[in-house]
Structure formats: C-alpha cells, structure tokens
C-alpha cells in the first residue's frame, strides 16, 4: 500500500527567493524567506554573514535556520555582502563601511516590507557588525541573535593572516610572520589570503572593531550561542562582555551547543541543536504581533 504523503512535503516558502537588492550602484545577491502564511506573522530577521571562507562554509546552516524561522512566522533576508558570494564587486573593493551601509539599507528595506519586531542575526564577524548596527540604531524593540560572535577584530584578523602563514608553511615557502604580512599589506595595499584579496582599508577597519566599546541599548534582548565540539565554559573575553551587558541591564541569555564549528569544517556540517535552540529562544521572547 502506498504511504500517504508526509505533511512536511516541502512548499515554496522553504527554498528562499533569490533576487538582487540594488543600492548605491551595488547589487546585493539576497535570499528572501517569506513568513509562512499558515502561522501568525512575528517579525523580520536580517542575517549578517560570516567573513571570507567562513561565510561559504556556513551557507547551508544559515539557510536551514532561515527556513526554520520562516516556518515560525518570520520573514528572513540573507544578503551576500558587496564583493562576496553572488553580489557585485570584488572583495578587494569591499570595506566595513560599505558593508555596514548596505546592511543598514537591507534593514530599511525589510522594515518597509513588513511591520513588527526586528531581529539582527549575526554569525562570527557578522555578529560584531550586527552589534555595531544595533548600537547605532538604538532600536527600542530589536533583538540580537549572535552565533559564536567575534568580539575583537584585531584577534580575528590575526587568525585570518595565519591562514596565509599556514599555507606558506605547507607549501614549504619561505617562512614569514604575521608582522611581515602586515607590512606587505601596508606596502602593496592588498594581500591575498586563502583566495581573498584583503585590502589595507578593510584590514584596518576590522582591526579597529571591539564589541566592548559599543554602547548596546538597554532594551536590547540578546541571545548568544556558542557552538564547540566539547562542552567548555564560554571563552573569557566572551564572558567578560556578557557580564558587562548584564551590568548595564541589557537582557542577555547565553547558550552552549556541542557540535562541529560548521563555519570552519572541511565538510559542510549541520548542527540541528543550534537551530532548535535558536527557534526556542524566539518563542520565549517574541509574541505574535497580530
């Protein structure tokens, strides 16, 4: 006997609609996940992608989360930054300022699309940018979801430059140091790291970013999730920042999930628990708006 079709047969809103958002002569490739028509509408979510290869590796997880949120009644926008993915421009032309300006534009675009709560959802370096935008906008009603946020741009750039060192080491090229690479970057204006042409401007902008200096509005609700292969306490700098927010009466909830760090793994990996925990958090903080 034939089995009945599962109720979970994919429907159109699960796949996301690809389109280009045009702004200041930049074309941003974006995926839009419309809120499922079957449930009460709950708000709009803007995703801030990770940086470089981390963005590519995490694409599958981002789409899975966006789908899960659309089923919950949220409309989710997932853009590719200028100079990355399928957006226009070269990576070497990109800058933090341009990305932030584009994300500001995306947010306005989403708010024009639908009323309701606004959620900024960032992964790794994208989480730092989401925090910066939240601090700037002083949204009274916004929520932030931070997945393994990068809090110190300087440390992050050090790790990024190490990729170049590791490549050199493995191909047996002349050994150099991060300091040499920084000098080369200064001299030549651009440095290729793992296939990405990093500009001096972008490098300096990221190095200057520190979450601890951002003034996060009190009304902000933050959910910070940390994924690691084994259960550890939150890294000390992350905990310090959480403590600072709590002291400033910002509502912060932290969560830890055991699983592969999918933005760096060799194979594309999936962490279902992260998606479930994120969905659950939304259920506790956001009521249907009508």
């Amino acid at each position, binding site marked *: 006997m034939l089995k009945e079709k599962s109720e979970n047969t994919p429907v159109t809103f699960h796949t996301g609609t690809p389109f280009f958002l045009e702004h200041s002569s930049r074309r941003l490739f974006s995926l839009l996940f419309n809120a499922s028509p079957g449930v009460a509408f709950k708000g709009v979510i803007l995703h801030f992608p990770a940086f470089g*290869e981390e963005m590519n590796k995490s694409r599958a997880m981002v789409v899975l989360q966006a789908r899960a949120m659309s089923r919950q009644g949220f409309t989710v926008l997932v853009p590719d930054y200028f100079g990355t993915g399928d957006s226009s421009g070269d990576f070497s032309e990109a800058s933090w300022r341009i990305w932030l300006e584009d994300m500001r534009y995306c947010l306005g675009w989403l708010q024009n699309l639908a009323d309701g709560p606004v959620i900024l959802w960032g992964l790794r370096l994208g989480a730092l940018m989401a925090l910066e935008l939240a601090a700037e906008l002083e949204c009274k009603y916004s929520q932030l979801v931070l997945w393994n946020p990068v809090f110190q741009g300087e440390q992050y750039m050090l790790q990024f430059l190490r*990729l170049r060192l*590791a490549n050199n080491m*493995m191909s047996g090229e002349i050994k150099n*140091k991060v300091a040499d690479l920084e000098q080369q970057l200064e001299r030549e204006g651009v440095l290729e790291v793992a296939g990405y042409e990093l500009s001096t401007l972008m490098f300096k902008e990221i190095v200057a970013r520190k979450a601890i200096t951002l003034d996060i509005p009190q009304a902000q609700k933050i959910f910070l999730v940390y994924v690691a292969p084994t259960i550890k306490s939150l890294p000390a700098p992350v905990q310090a920042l959480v403590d600072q927010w709590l002291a400033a009466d910002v509502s912060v909830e932290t969560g830890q999930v055991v699983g592969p760090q999918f933005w760096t793994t*060799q194979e594309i990996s999936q962490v279902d628990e992260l998606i479930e925990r994120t969905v659950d958090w939304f259920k506790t903080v956001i009521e249907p708006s009508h």
Partner: protein
Amino acid sequence: MSVALQIIDIVKDSMQIDYSIDIDTALLGAVPEFDSMAVVTVLTSLEESFGIMINDDEVDASIFETVGALVSFVEGKV
C-alpha cells in the same frame, strides 16, 4: 585529562574525523584533512584551551609532523 589526550581531541575536532588517532599519527602531509584551515583551528584551540600564546616564529612544519610533536611543543609551553 592529560595534555596528549586533550590535543588528540583538538586535532580530531579540527579535522572532523571520527577514527582514532594516537601520539604516533602523522599529520602534515599525511592526513588530507589536515589543511591550512585545520592548522589555524588547531593553533587557536591550543591557545584557548591551554591559555598559551603561540608566536609566528614558533609555527613550523616540524611541530605538525605527528601528534606527538605537537604534544611536545605544547608541553614545552605550559
């Protein structure tokens, strides 16, 4: 947990392998999963887990030859 066992976990996590490895397992050039991204992940995890700072001039192919070489390197720093 001993330094060696912790490092074995870190290396396995960085490459996402589930077969067992030991002190004698050769890494760099021997395990295809051990690429530059894995090297950077291992360095970062070692710094976080052992509270050490690893300078660029200490990073050399020889410390990634085997798991044991990596263990000796870290033991020399903690």
